[in-house]
């Protein structure tokens, strides 16, 4: 999950490169029509520069135009910073509604995470060199546990889907799981096996997370999301409380989900 500050800096940098490339490309294209012999003798230095640019403009102008185009595409992929801020705010508000009764708990004990379904040939799956599609976290509520690199397999072969996120994607229905074992209180093999079975993970993966003292929620809710009718990704609500998600998380989403959909159309 890309840190929002880094994402904003990359977006701005790519934009600057695109603007500069495009502007220089336009100047070069204009220079291709210029005649250095018409430049006054007092500006002889400029005539040399214009002549040089005129020689190189057939190559550089289209190349810089291409760079500007690539930058524009990259910015579209990254998404405008204000859109990500609005999505983060949405997740915060949604989290506050769902866990209103747990308002005094630390924010990272009850989280709402937005996952995007990314095909193997799309960024950033392609750098993982895997032929499987994945569900990748792109934004999360709160101000902690933001640097998540936990992804879940969601390939075309349904038998290889992984985790609550993977199975929610597979059935594309809202899935709710409560009363999972508290592994931080009792990390016995029996509890690890039970937790792994009920969350569609391997026991080794669960044990690894427990050893790294990572959060192992006791209840989950996965809500699939469509954007313009197409399957886009999902929201995963996780909580250290075993029963908090039994309350109405769907009804609140019905009130707020249209806003999220409009924001996701922009990324």
């Amino acid at each position: 999950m890309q840190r929002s500050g880094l994402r904003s800096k990359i977006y701005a940098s790519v934009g600057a490169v695109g603007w500069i490339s495009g502007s220089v490309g336009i100047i070069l294209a204009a220079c291709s029509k210029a005649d250095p012999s018409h430049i006054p003798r007092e500006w002889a230095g400029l005539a040399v520069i214009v002549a040089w640019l005129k020689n190189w403009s057939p190559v550089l102008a289209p190349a810089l135009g291409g760079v500007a185009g690539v930058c524009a595409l990259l910015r579209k992929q990254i998404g405008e910073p204000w859109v990500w801020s609005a999505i983060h705010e949405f997740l915060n508000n949604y989290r506050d509604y769902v866990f209103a009764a747990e308002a005094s708990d630390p924010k990272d004990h009850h989280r709402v995470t937005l996952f995007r379904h990314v095909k193997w040939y799309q960024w950033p799956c392609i750098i993982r060199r895997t032929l499987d599609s994945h569900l990748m976290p792109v934004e999360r509520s709160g101000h902690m546990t933001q640097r998540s690199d936990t992804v879940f397999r969601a390939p075309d072969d349904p038998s290889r889907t992984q985790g609550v996120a993977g199975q929610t994607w597979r059935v594309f229905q809202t899935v709710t799981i409560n009363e999972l074992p508290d592994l931080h209180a009792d990390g016995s093999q029996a509890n690890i096996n039970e937790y792994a079975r009920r969350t569609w993970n391997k026991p080794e993966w669960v044990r690894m997370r427990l050893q790294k003292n990572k959060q192992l929620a006791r209840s989950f809710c996965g809500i699939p999301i469509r954007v313009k009718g197409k399957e886009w990704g999902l929201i995963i609500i996780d909580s250290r409380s075993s029963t908090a998600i039994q309350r109405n998380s769907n009804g609140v989403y019905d009130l707020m989900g249209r806003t999220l959909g409009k924001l996701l159309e922009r990324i």
Partner: protein
Amino acid sequence: MSDWIRLNTEVLNPTREIDVAGVAVKVRLSPHDVPIAVRGRRDEQQGRFCIEFKYLDDEPSRIHSDQPEFRVWVGASSGRLCSIEIPLKSLSEDGKVALSVQVPGMIENWSRHLPETSSPRGIIAGESRRAAAGAIREASAMLAGSL
């Protein structure tokens, strides 16, 4: 066209318990697959009554059934029920009966004749159509005003 009638999605989208990859879990349709509002329009010129469904996200629609007695538009990507058109002469004069019994029955009858599929997406599409039929029943009293 009447104003959008907001629906109670808790009623339209009940929780079920199913087995997912060997684990018993509670599921409901995605909130994106259940209509959140519905509205109706009487077209005297064409002699038809048109009902539209609103979802959490918008998408283009395509015609699915062009039978004169029952025209259906579904979402181009999702297959959700977007709108239906019924001839006025085939509806009961009692608007409430027409909308609480006849029209949902037409949707369910049309849905039954679609190719059966047990794939997850096929199941979702079937449940979504049932939710749409339920939406008309729920809003029948208010829709009857535009009939």
